[in-house]
């Protein structure tokens, strides 16, 4: 890996985190996804901005991160998952996504452009929800989270292939989906 001294410099990392966050917030805002109307538009399938932003980020990010990894510049950090954690948590997340109309990143961006429902309703609710999870964590961890653990960390591991055999077809698929959305007028 490159820049190991930089990674170990805790104080400088806080500055880098802040600067990357400022750029992240700017991109989220200009794309429109920090708006409740845009997020609900996506979930009601009338506005595909969220999917366009996410798929483009994944396409660009994936090529760059895997290219750097091939050269030994970066390490991957895929998260483990399970039916009990990923699927059940995901269902609860989706309900929150529709009811709140923001996610943890976009709620921060929404606060930045003056959405007071995001600040007083959304952020406080997320803090309470995260606190409930922390309180229930020992029980959930024992009884639910470890049910049906996924065997592989990444898709190329699961398929036992070189990652580029997944990346290249996936890039073509993403490009086709985006072209299809534009062609059909979304």
């Amino acid at each position, binding site marked *: 890996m490159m*820049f190991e001294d*930089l990674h170990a410099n805790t104080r400088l990392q*806080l500055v880098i*985190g802040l600067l*990357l*966050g*400022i750029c*992240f917030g*700017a*991109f989220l805002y200009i*794309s429109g996804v*920090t708006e*409740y*109307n845009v997020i609900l538009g996506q979930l*009601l399938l009338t506005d595909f901005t969220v999917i*366009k932003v*996410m798929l*483009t*980020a*994944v396409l*660009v*990010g994936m090529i*760059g991160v895997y290219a750097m990894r091939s050269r030994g510049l970066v*390490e991957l950090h*895929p*998260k483990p*998952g*399970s039916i009990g*954690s990923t699927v059940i*948590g*995901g*269902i609860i*997340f*989706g*309900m*929150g*996504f*529709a009811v*709140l109309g923001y996610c*943890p*990143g976009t709620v*921060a961006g929404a*606060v*930045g452009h*003056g959405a007071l*429902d995001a600040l007083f*309703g959304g*952020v406080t*609710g997320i803090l*309470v929800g*995260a*606190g*409930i*999870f*922390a309180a229930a964590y020992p029980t959930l*961890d024992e009884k639910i989270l470890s049910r049906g653990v996924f065997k*592989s960390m*990444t*898709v190329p591991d699961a398929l036992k292939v070189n*990652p580029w055999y997944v990346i290249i077809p996936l890039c073509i698929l993403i490009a086709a989906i985006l072209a299809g959305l534009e062609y059909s007028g979304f």
Partner: protein
Amino acid sequence: MDWTPYIAGAGIGVLSWAAFLLSNKPLGCSTAFARTSGMIERLFRGRKTDEKAYYRKFPLVVDWEWMLVAGVVIGAFITSVIVGGFSFEWVPTLFGDTFGYDTGLRLAVAFAGGILMGLGSRWAGGCTSGHGISGTLQLAVSSWIAVVVFFLSGIVSAFLLYGVLW
């Protein structure tokens, strides 16, 4: 055709390169909320809070990701002021046009949704950023499953909420 979502999306993709290269971390937002929640709890319950199993896993400190989320607020604020989009708003128009412009109602609904969001994102181990963008771009199995479930559950919930099907 509007290129803005693609330019912004590509920008976020490049930011993920920078996060991996400069910080050895994927972009993510929801653990910052978990840490903040614990820090607030600590104000009331004191040091006992640090002993909780979940906060031993995610210590109650201001870390890289916490600064990232603080940066998102600042970045959206600066950009919205520059382009003239900053404005205080209690009720988003889609919500108001459907359910009425009642600030109390919107805050109650947002709070309830926030609880589900905070609970669900920690339960699933990530959010739309950590799983939806950073995890999927690493081709993580858990993240592709998570993002599909996020959107399926979100679409069903939004259709029920807005009464699209009846």
